[in-house]
């Protein structure tokens, strides 16, 4: 309750023009913003651009924030829509290559950064796990940007469908149908792996 009250204070201060208060809000949410953008776009470069654009938008339009939803929902809505735009642009350019890249364009070994004691003793298993992760990523990229976003927000970020609907300016029912379509497509694409 206290945390929520102090966040509301921060938002009001930031709305009145306090840069310090806005910086505190950025620090509070930047990790979540980057995590979502990085996983959705698969590129550090894109994630950094989305981070930049999202917080600049938040700064410009913070005056329009009316406390009708949480700040978390509000900033997530901005980030999600920027990610959607980015994925749509990429689909048009057909850039997706199923590989996560860092700022300089180098491939990131995402799976190496996840703790798994078994991999130290079994390099073959580690390779297998890495290949599997790449297959999943490719399958995810074949979804439409909206399906990919709903699946990301539900499966990986664990958000409620009602909230996902709100973020994407649609209904809970539509979000549920989109999730159903996404899981169906993924199952078809990954059928031989099971």
């Amino acid at each position, binding site marked *: 309750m206290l945390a929520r009250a102090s966040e509301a204070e921060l938002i009001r201060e930031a709305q009145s*023009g306090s840069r310090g208060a*806005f910086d505190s809000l*950025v620090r509070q949410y930047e990790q979540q913003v*980057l995590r979502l953008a990085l996983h959705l776009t698969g590129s550090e470069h894109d*994630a950094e651009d989305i981070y930049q654009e999202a917080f600049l938008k938040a700064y410009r339009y913070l005056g329009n924030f009316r406390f009708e939803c949480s700040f978390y929902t509000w900033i997530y809505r901005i980030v999600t829509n920027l990610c959607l735009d980015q994925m749509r642009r990429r689909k048009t350019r057909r850039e997706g290559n199923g590989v996560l890249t860092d700022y300089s364009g180098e491939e990131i070994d995402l799976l190496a950064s996840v703790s798994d004691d078994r991999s130290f003793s079994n390099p073959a298993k580690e390779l297998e796990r890495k290949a599997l992760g790449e297959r*999943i990523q490719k399958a995810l990229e074949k979804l439409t940007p909206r399906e990919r976003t709903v699946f990301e927000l539900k499966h990986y970020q664990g958000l409620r469908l009602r909230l996902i609907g709100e973020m994407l300016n649609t209904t809970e029912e539509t979000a549920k149908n989109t999730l*159903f379509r996404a899981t169906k497509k*993924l199952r078809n694409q990954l059928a031989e792996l099971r």
Partner: protein
Amino acid sequence: MKCQIAQERIVAAEYSEMAGIEALELERHLEGCAECRRDREQLRALKVLADAYPVAEPDANLRARARMRLEAALDALPPRRWIERLAQRIMNGFARLQAAPVAAGLLLLAGLAAGSLGGYRLAENRVTIAAPTQRAQAAPVQAQPAVEAWEPAKDEIASVSRIVRQPNSHTVEVSYNQIVAHKVQGSLDDPAIRQLLMLGSRNSSAARVRDDSVGLLADECKAGHGCKTAGIRDALLVALHSDRNDSVREKALEGLQPYVAEDMQVRNAVLEALLNDYDPKVRTAAISILQPVEGDTSVRQVLHSVADSDRNPYIRTVSRQVLENEPEIQ
């Protein structure tokens, strides 16, 4: 129920988006439909598969780079004109005014409720005074426990809000939020308490809670109370890698100290903190817990590299001293 509807509902159910009568109807359908049961198994398999593409924490470099770029962009924005600031103040005031009727309504309701409760209590007291013998015969009412029992399987915890350790004892009191705040008290060895502390260590909005949680978990590790199996070590690794609060990262380091020699993952995390953490205190603490490790030259390599070329002269000196004092470091 038709199979197509059932299959749509399976997705909702498996993602905890269905309850009540719909869930019961689905269960009933699944009992008699092998095809839909197969469908559910396939969905469960997909959920397991999807986790093979994990959500990685953005590293500190990316975060620092993004923040610097944002700060530069914000600095470049022209300051808001006085007319814009005035308009904003008016809008804020207007928003508060809009909320005023709601607040007044709530106050009125609260007043009515308090009045009714007061009247009820008064009437109840009068009845008690009028019939003391009846009261004496009544069965004793068991007092409600001050702190309720916690059942992790049933509860969805929103966040951990406060942690208090009882003075000179092994007991800790953890406050956490659902829709309403709860409080639970138990030993630090209690898995449920440990689970709450681990949740507290990830509370992104309250640095104090993270600091307390990580501090207590670290103490448990230092005392050798089985941290590795319970996932505490992983919680400390995450805190060391990602927490934005220097004190939390420092405490996480202290808790990881007992595992530096035996656990390569911990050693790598400590070396990464030494190389990349932006707080010199955390980096110095990382140096102090490094130990000689047989068959792993990474500790020596990193210390040499820091001693030779780190931009912080104090860190350079400390690293040199460690290398000189402990020549057996591999």
